[in-house]
């Protein structure tokens, strides 16, 4: 009530985002770590490299594969998710499809780019955090992309009281509590454009509300991009200084 959400944010505010590049540079070509609130995701990228199996060879482009691992301790209840878990597969497919369309795969024919994601903690917006982490890891690996892919969630509050009887505000970047309470969607855009590369929603919502939710989500993507870009530039600068200083 009074326009504040249960964690003290207003309708159009993101949670704290902390991101980092090159977190495990020894065993991956690119890696990243992102925290969005208490959602924490670690991403490693290897490749472009020789495809691990024959089936993955494409003559004119690189294959993008994605593996997602949920840590058993990542949610409130301890749940082990295996390779064939529905949710794991869903996430893998969503991320794989998204990045296959954004990576300039035609530059690396007959090779494979592997994205492996570890979800360490879930507090809402898991898919969005995964996508953002992947973007950073790909940048770290030096794989050419069309632009940043930034993802964000938005939800439609329903019960917030409203004197004027107009539709209630959509909420940006929902946390776990809100996610289980209200309908929400994840949207990913290419850079700061309004071009949507991924859109997923698992609940029902009235069609009139959808436009507002997507609009808020897109504005959130732009904010996320700013934060990620700043971190990439900061990291690039330190690397550059380190290189030239020596």
């Amino acid at each position: 009530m009074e326009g504040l959400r249960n964690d003290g944010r207003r309708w159009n505010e993101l949670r704290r985002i902390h991101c980092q590049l090159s977190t495990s540079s020894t065993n991956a070509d690119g890696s990243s770590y992102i925290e969005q609130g208490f959602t924490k995701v670690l991403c490693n990228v290897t490749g472009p490299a020789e495809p691990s199996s024959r089936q993955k060879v494409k003559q004119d482009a690189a294959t993008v594969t994605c593996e997602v691992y949920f840590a058993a301790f990542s949610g409130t209840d301890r749940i082990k998710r295996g390779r064939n878990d529905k949710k794991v597969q869903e996430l893998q497919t969503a991320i794989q499809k998204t990045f296959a369309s954004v990576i300039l795969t035609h530059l690396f024919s007959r090779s494979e780019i592997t994205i492996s994601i570890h979800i360490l903690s879930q507090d809402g917006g898991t898919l969005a955090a995964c996508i953002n982490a992947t973007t950073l890891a790909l940048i770290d690996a030096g794989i050419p992309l069309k632009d940043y892919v930034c993802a964000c969630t938005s939800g439609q509050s329903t019960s917030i009281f409203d004197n004027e009887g107009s539709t209630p505000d959509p909420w940006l970047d929902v946390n776990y509590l809100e996610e289980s309470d209200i309908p929400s969607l994840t949207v990913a855009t290419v850079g700061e454009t309004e071009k949507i590369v991924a859109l997923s929603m698992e609940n029902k919502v009235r069609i009139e509300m959808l436009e507002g939710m997507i609009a808020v989500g897109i504005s959130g993507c732009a904010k996320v991009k700013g934060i990620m870009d700043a971190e990439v530039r900061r990291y690039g600068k330190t690397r550059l200084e380190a290189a030239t200083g020596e």
Partner: protein
Amino acid sequence: MTSIKRMLVDPSSNDSITSKVYIRSAKSGKVTKIVREIYLRTDIPCSSRLCRACLANAPVDSNNRSRPFVLSEKPAGTTQYKHGHYLMPDTNIFLQCMDAIEHKSAFYDVIVLQTVLDEVKNQSLPLYNRLVSLTKADEKRFYVFHNEFRQETHVKRGQEESINDRNDRAIRVACKWYQKHIEQAAASSSATAPAIVMLTNDKANLAKAKSEGLNSTDLNGYVKGLKNADELLDMISSSLQDLEKKANRGANVYAEYFSLPKMNTGVRNGTLHQGTFHTSTYNSLEGTVGVPSFDKHLLIVGLENMNRAIDGDQVVVELLPQDQWKKQSDKLVDQDTLTKNENADVDEVEAIVTERERRALIDEAKRIQRSQDESQKVQPTAKIVGVLKRNWRSYVGHIDPNSVNRAKSGGQQVVFFRPLDKKIPRIRVFTRQATQLLGQRIVVNIDTWDRTSRFPVGHFVRALGELESKEAETEALLLEYDVQYRPFPKAVLDCLPSEGHDWIVPEKGTSGWEKRVDLRDLLVCSIDPPGCQDIDDALHARLLPNGNYEAGVHIADVSHFVKPNNAMDDEAASRGTTVYLVDKRIDMLPPLLGTDLCSLKPYVERYAFSVIWEMTPDAKIVNTKFTKSVIKSREAFAYKAAQMRIDDKSQTDPLTEGMRILLMLSKKLKQARMDAGALNLASPEVKIHMESETSDPASIEVKELLETNSLVEEFMLCANISVARKIYEAFPQTAMLRRHGAPPATNFDDLRSQLRARKGLDLRVESSKALADSLDGCVDPQEAYFNTLVRIIATRCMLPAEYFSSGTQAYPEFRHYGLATDIYTHFTSPIRRYADLAAHRQLAAAIEYEALDETLYNKNKMDAVVKNINIRHRNAQFAGRASIEYYVGQALKNKSTEQEGFVAKIFSNGFVVFVPKFGIEGTIKVETAKTYDADEYILELEDGRKVVLFDKVKVMVNVVKEQATGRRKTELTLA
């Protein structure tokens, strides 16, 4: 290289984010630790109109609006705080004194801290809802300050600090911040700063606040500085006042309740039973609990076994051994006779069972021994071992004059409060204004019922006015049945069309006409009771070229004006129905809609929702069509006028012909319904004529039924059934339907044995058809009224009809027993019933006129809607009946008459007489009866007269002021 570590590098962000850790344990015994983020901010306004700084950076929502500031720049002062003050109460103040806080005379400009609001929510949801509605309403200027989210006022729980201490500290911190903030704000606008007054009854907290230099006081101290201190002090929960007295109370009157886990285990493994407790209407020492594992209700006898349960409470019971099982009492016992001379002030602990009670119980036991042979009549008995959920609410009643010590003028005393509802025990109330409250209708809330107290303890809420004044009694009645009677708030009125009474149906082809059929050339008319303003329905009929008839029912298109989920819809949903009292109508919708824009008034164009059938001359439906339409009613008839028009052979205009067709068809519809086994039940309906000038009741007459009444009724039933089928087809899970369960045969046991014994008649109850037929056979050639009497009694054996959403019942359970139809709904009165409005919306969606709102296809939300309207519907009926009863009492005041009555029920020490002329019923008690034949239902009086069940008796109808309720009531005595 960098590694992953707990990263909060930026020290500034360190300040603004904190986390909340809490541990949640589930019912299954599982424990989870949850960590949540909290974002601390600096833009939460203080909401004082004095403050410019907060106003400048007030936050906005997605439409760029900010909330207006709440707290006034010149708050009221008290003797203590001359420059005005803002109040900041703690949690317990809200929990214990909500009634006083809601009072109009005090408690303005209140800061409700988020900490406090959350605590109130955890402790009591009803109180939380009341508090929230206070903060939403403008007039009391309550502001919720989110102290937990503001950087300066957020408080982290220290190690070893209890949650309560932390919350108390949070309140003090917020108070301190406010004080400083307001001082600054006042200084910048060179005004005197109002004081921030922390209200708490916690002594430790008070002391700490004082030492920190905060303004703080306890509630008593604060209220004493106000003008009407006595009244306000009375409204404070007695649990607060009574603390010191409680300590030196004596022995316990009642057995202790079982612990919750013990009850849960007991219920699960079948040693205990759970159900709702109901006090008997005739005997205040007896109640019943219906539990799933027994066919018969479990009997609870005596106050000790009732163990502080009040009518409607959810209780857990333990069965008593079989040798203590009893027959249901056939005696009349009311509280009055039992506790006439008790003193409210003295808790007679030693006399747990007073002498009178004991005597009543012994009588009872004797009677049971005598009738040992009829073992089938014995009911299992039980005692209550715990209350799961209290059904306490506000009670309306008056102060028992006998319990008031008139000599004691000032100071507090304890008095007895007698609720109007006889099922509720008397309540002990602490008051400082006993003498003023005598002779007043007042409202009281129950606070507690301790083991040490024979009666529950409550506190005064407000006075409604003089006993027997029309305003007070009407308001009492509305409160008692929880009818919302306050005027519609502005938010609701804002939802009305801006044209007001000048609104007209727009030109054809403009907006509003989409998917609407033009039916203005049909000869439509409405038939209603005389003086009816909210005309829901209109009818038409005509002969089709193929020899069939077209008949149409047109219902006011309320759903066009009341859109889902706006303020008006919410208000209508919570009111549920229009309540009709004798002299007053409490509308569900604002009168502009109900009596004008929606009402299908004659000679003007109106939006309607039409059901149009093609019927064969035998009234078989060939084809049904549903459509939104525009109609123009040609005439609004009263039942009588319509009847005369139809009977008048000289009238041959098409409108009259149409009505004749309708009448012809309705007779055939009725016959078909009767053949299917529909019941024709009787309920005594009377009409009260008012004197137009004084609006005092003048005379009473029994309602007359004409053919045209049944004409309208038949077509409405027909429309309801057609609509029910359609919406069930479209929404099999959530269609708004109405069902009437078949009553269990045991309900009729008494009536059957009575009829067999007295008249040698047999009542067959295996189906509604059999019942209808055998009811027709219940005639006494000497007494024409006997049949009606049996019908009235039979009606009382029925179950009430109820609304339900189709997903909650299996199809065979949809049956409407009374109307003998497999499916039914309410569609024809959307102006006065919310169920009909819901059915309208579902039908509109079913014919693809508009999309359906979520509330009507979401099962859970639908269940909530249905539950509410069932309660409202029942309460409206009770209120209506109570109003008639009250006015009958007023009309017969000072007119003692001798009337014919019939014995409807018989007890060993009294009997119930029904007087058809006034539609009233009264109990006549016999102090000493000579003999009572329970098998033949004959009671022989001292003077040798015999009272026989179902027989005619002459009674005197008097009106007396009833001691127990302070209300004028008819009293019957044998003439």
